[in-house]
C-alpha cells in the first residue's frame, strides 16, 4: 500500500472536516466563543459541499484499499453534509439558550459527520469500522451533552452500552468473515463467495453477527430497544442527527456491501432482512400509537421508516438504489424539519416533547404549526410532499421485483402510521381547554425559522416537482 499515490485533493472532504474540528478545538483553548465556532462549523460544512458539487460530482475514483468515491457515495455524502449543516443551524439557537458549555458540541458534530461520511464511501472493513466508531463515540457524548437534564445520563449510558455491544458484535462478525474469506475488502469477500458459491457455517455466523450490529445502529426491530429512550433523552438537534445522518450512513453502507457481495443470492440473508423489515414496519408503527411523547413517537416512526427503506434495499437493482437515495433525501428533510420544530419550541428547562405542548399550537404559532403539519404529512406519505414521492418510489421498487408481501406490509404500516401522525396534527389544531396555559416559553430565533422555512420549501418542492432530484440521482448513480 502506497500512501503517496493518494491524490490529496481526492480525500479533501475528510481533511476539511478534521481540520475544522481541530481548529475548533484550538479556538476553544484560546477563547470560548459560540458564534465563532458555529461559524467555523457552518463554513467548513459548506466548503465540503461546494467541493463535492464542483470537484467530486464528476470524479470517480478509489483510494485503495479503503475508500471508493463513486456517484452514490458522493451524492449521499453531500446529503449528509447538508443535513449536518441544517442541524448545526438549528443547534445554534438551541444551545444558545442553555447555560452549559456549548462550544465542544460542534467538534463532536463535525467528527460525527466525518464518521458518517466515511461509512458512505468505505469499501473495506477497516474503514467501515473506523467510520462507525468515529460516529458512535462522538454520538455518546452528544447524546448526554446536556448533562444536567434528568434523562440525559440515562440516554447517554444506554446508548454507550448498547452501541458498544453492537460494535463488538460487528467486529466479531467481521473477524469471522475475515477468517473464512481471508479478505477484509468488500471486493475480496465477493470474489471468495463467488468462487465457493455457498455460505459456510462460519461465514453465515459472521454475516449474522454483522446483521445484529448493523441492526442496532439502524434501530430496526428486534434491535430497536434503545431508540425511544435515546431519542427522548438526547437534546432535540442531536436526536435529529441520530435519526438522519447516523442512520443514513449505515443504510448506504449496507446497500453497498450487499450489492458487492451479491447478498440477494443467499436466501437465508434475504429472509432475515425481510423479517426485520416487516417487524420494523409493523412493530414500530404499532408501538408509536401508544406514545404520548412526541420525541418517542418520532423515534418509533423512524424505526418504521427504516423498515420501509429496507423494502427498497431488498428490491435492489437500479430502481432500488434510486428509491433508497430519493427516500433518504425525503426522510432527511422531513426528520430534520420535524425535530427542528421540536427544538425550536423547547425552552431552557426541557424539550417540547409532551403532546400537550402542542395543544392548540396552530393558534399560537401558526407558521411553526404549519411547518410541523407539513413534516408530519410528509412522514405519513401524503401527496404534495417529498415523503409521498419517496414512499411511492419505495413501493414502485418493491412492486417491480414483486415483493408483494413487503409492499403490502408497507401499505399496512403506513395506514397504522396515520393514526399517530394525525393525532399530533389534530392536537395542534385542537383549541381545547388548557391550551392557553403555555408551559414552555421558547425564544424564537430568526435563523431557526429560516432553516425550517427552507426545509419545508425544499420538501414541498421535491414533492410537487421531483423530476429535478430524480434526474440528479440518476446522474450520480450512473
Amino acid at each position, binding site marked *: 500500500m502506497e500512501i503517496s499515490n493518494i491524490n490529496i485533493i481526492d480525500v479533501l472532504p475528510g481533511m476539511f472536516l478534521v481540520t475544522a474540528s481541530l481548529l475548533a478545538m484550538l479556538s476553544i483553548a484560546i477563547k470560548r466563543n459560540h458564534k465563532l465556532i458555529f461559524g467555523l462549523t457552518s463554513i467548513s460544512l459548506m466548503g465540503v459541499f461546494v467541493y463535492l458539487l464542483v470537484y467530486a460530482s464528476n470524479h470517480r475514483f478509489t483510494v485503495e484499499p479503503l475508500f471508493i468515491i463513486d456517484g452514490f457515495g458522493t451524492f449521499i455524502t453531500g446529503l449528509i453534509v447538508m443535513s449536518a449543516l441544517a442541524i448545526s443551524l438549528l443547534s445554534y439557537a438551541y444551545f444558545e439558550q442553555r447555560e452549559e458549555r456549548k462550544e465542544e458540541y460542534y467538534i463532536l458534530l463535525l467528527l460525527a459527520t466525518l464518521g458518517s461520511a466515511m461509512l458512505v464511501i468505505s469499501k473495506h472493513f477497516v474503514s467501515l469500522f473506523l467510520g462507525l466508531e468515529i460516529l458512535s463515540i462522538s454520538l455518546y457524548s452528544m447524546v448526554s451533552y446536556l448533562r444536567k437534564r434528568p434523562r440525559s445520563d440515562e440516554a447517554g449510558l444506554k446508548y454507550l452500552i448498547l452501541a458498544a455491544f453492537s460494535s463488538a458484535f460487528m467486529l466479531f462478525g467481521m473477524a469471522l468473515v475475515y477468517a473464512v474469506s481471508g479478505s477484509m475488502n468488500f471486493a475480496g469477500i465477493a470474489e471468495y463467495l463467488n468462487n465457493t458459491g455457498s455460505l459456510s457455517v462460519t461465514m453465515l455466523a459472521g454475516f449474522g453477527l454483522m446483521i445484529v450490529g448493523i441492526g442496532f445502529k439502524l434501530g430496526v426491530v428486534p434491535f430497536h430497544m434503545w431508540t425511544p429512550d435515546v431519542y427522548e433523552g438526547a437534546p432535540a438537534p442531536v436526536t435529529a442527527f441520530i435519526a438522519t445522518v447516523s442512520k443514513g450512513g449505515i443504510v448506504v453502507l449496507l446497500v453497498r456491501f450487499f450489492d458487492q457481495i451479491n447478498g440477494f443470492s443467499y436466501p437465508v440473508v434475504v429472509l432475515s432482512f425481510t423479517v426485520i423489515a416487516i417487524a420494523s414496519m409493523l412493530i414500530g408503527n404499532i408501538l408509536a400509537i401508544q406514545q404520548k411523547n412526541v420525541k418517542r413517537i418520532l423515534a418509533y416512526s423512524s424505526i418504521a421508516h427504516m423498515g420501509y427503506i429496507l423494502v427498497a434495499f431488498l428490491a435492489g437493482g437500479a430502481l432500488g438504489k434510486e428509491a433508497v437515495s430519493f427516500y433518504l433525501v425525503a426522510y432527511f428533510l422531513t426528520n430534520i424539519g420535524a425535530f427542528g420544530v421540536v427544538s425550536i419550541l423547547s425552552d431552557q428547562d426541557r424539550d417540547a416533547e409532551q403532546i400537550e405542548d402542542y395543544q392548540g399550537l396552530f393558534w399560537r404559532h401558526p407558521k411553526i404549526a404549519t411547518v410541523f403539519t407539513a413534516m408530519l*404529512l410528509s412522514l405519513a406519505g*401524503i*401527496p*404534495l410532499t417529498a415523503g*409521498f414521492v419517496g414512499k*411511492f418510489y419505495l*413501493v*414502485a421498487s418493491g*412492486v*417491480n421485483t414483486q415483493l408483494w408481501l413487503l*409492499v*403490502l406490509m408497507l*401499505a399496512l404500516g*403506513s*395506514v397504522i402510521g*396515520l*393514526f399517530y401522525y*394525525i393525532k399530533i396534527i*389534530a392536537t395542534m*389544531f*385542537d383549541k381545547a381547554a388548557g391550551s392557553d396555559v403555555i408551559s414552555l416559553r421558547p425564544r424564537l430565533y430568526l435563523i431557526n425559522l429560516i432553516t425550517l422555512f427552507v426545509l419545508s420549501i425544499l420538501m414541498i418542492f421535491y414533492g410537487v*416537482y*421531483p*423530476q429535478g432530484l*430524480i*434526474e440528479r440521482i*440518476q446522474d450520480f448513480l450512473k
Partner: protein
Amino acid sequence: MILVAFVTILMVGGIFAWIIANWNKDLARWISVAALSIDFILGISIWWQNPTIESSTWLLQFTAKWVPSLGISFSLAIDGLSLLMLLLTFFLGIFGVLISWNEIQDRVGFFHFNLLWVLAGITGVFLTMDLFLFYFFWEVMLIPMYFLIGIWGHENRRYAAYKFFIFTQASGLLMLLAILGLYFVHGRATGTFTFNYFDLLNTQMSAGVERWLMLGFLAAFVVKLPVVPFHTWLPDAHSQASTAGSLILAGLLLKTGAYGLIRFVLPLFPSASAEIAPWAMLFGVIGILYGASLAFSQTDLKRLVAYTSVSHMGFVIFGVFAFNEIAMQGVVMQMITHGISTGALFVLAGSIYERIHTRDITSMGGFWTKAPFMSVVGLIFVLASLGLPGLGNFVAEFLTLIGSWQANPVLTIFATLGVVAATAYSLRIMQKVFLGNFTTDKTIPDLSFREKIIMIPLVISIIWLGLFPQPVMNVVKKVISIQFVTEKVSTTENSNGDK
C-alpha cells in the same frame, strides 16, 4: 389550458381566501364564490360549445410533462361524463360557500382554503387521465376534508374525522399498489413505462393478475362510494361535519367513487369486472336495503340522511355492474340527482340546526305552519329522495332498474323493494320534522334570503332533471356507448357462462 384553469383557479382562490381573511372575512367568502363561479361559467361555456357531443368523445385535452423519467405526465382531459360531474362540483361548491356564510365564524380563511382545495382535488379527480395524477388528486381531496370535519364539525368530530381519514387512506393505498402493479405489467409487456390512462387501456394480462389489480382499484372506490360493509365511516363523517362539509361529502365525494368505477375499473379491467359483477350487484342490493332500513331507525336527522345515501349509492354500484347502457345512464343520472337532492337535504338539516341547535328529530315537528317555505322545499326533496315521478331521482332509479332487469331479474326485484323502503324513511322525515305538533320552544324563522338563493336553484334543477333529462343523457351518451364496445363482448361471454 382551460382544464388546468379549472384546478388552478380553485387552488389559487383558496390560498387568497386564506390570506385575505386576516383582514376581511367577507371578502374571503366572496373570493371563494367568485372562484367557483368562474369555474362554473367556464364549464357551462364548454357545454354551450358542444351541445350534443357528437364529434368525438374527448372535448378537450391537455398534457404536459411532469416526471418524465417515471412516465408520469400532467394529463387532463374532459368528456361528457367529466363535464357533468364538474358542473355538479362547482354548482354545489358555490352553495357550500353560501351555506357557511353565517355558520362558520371561526378561522374563516382556513375554512375556505380547505373548502376550495377539496373541490380542487375533486375537480382533478374528474379530469385526470394519468393514474399517478389521479392518485395524487385522490389524496389531495383527503386532507382538507379531514380538517373540514375535524375542525368545524359537531361534538364528536375528531373521531369522525379520524375514521374518515383512515378508511379512505387505507383503501387508497391499495389502489396505489394496484396502479403500480398495472404500471409494471404494462411496462414489462410493451417496454414503455407509463401511467397514461389511454396507453394502459388495453393492457394484456393474465386473468389472475387482472383480478388482483381490479380488486385494488375496487377497494378505493367501494369505500368511497360506499358499499356495505365498507360504509361505517360515512354516517359518522356526514353527521359530524359542518353543513358545507356534509354537502360536499354527500354531493361530491361519494361521486368520485362512482366515477372511478365507471372511468377506471370497467375499462381497464373488462373481464375481471364481468367476473365480479354478480357479487357487486348483490352487495349493491344489500346496500340499498340495509341503508334504507337503518335510515328508517335513525333519530339524528343528518345521520338519517347519511344512511339514505348508503341506500342510494347501492343503486350506483348495482347499475354499474349491470353492464348495459340504460343502467349506466341511470347511474349517471343518479350521481347527479343524488348529489342535488341529498345535498339539499343536508342544507335543510343545517338550517334547522342553526335554528333549534339539535339534530334530533324527536324534538322537531310542526314546522309546516311556522316555516312554510322551508317545509315546501323540504317536501320537494323528500319526495325526490323517495323517487317520485317528475323529479330527477325517479328517472335515475327507473333507468337503473330497467337496465339491470336484463342483467339479473331476481336481484332487481329486491332492489325495487328498496324504492318502497325509501318511501317509508322519506315520509318519516316529512312526518317527524314538518308535520305533527310544534314542540320546541325556540322560534323558527322561515328561510332567509340567502338560504332561498341556495334552495331555489336546487329545486329548479331537480325538477328540470325530472322533466327534461334528455340533455344530460345526450352529453354522456357517447361516453357510455363507447364504454360498452369492449364490455359487450365480455358480458355476453359471462351470461353464456351463467346458463
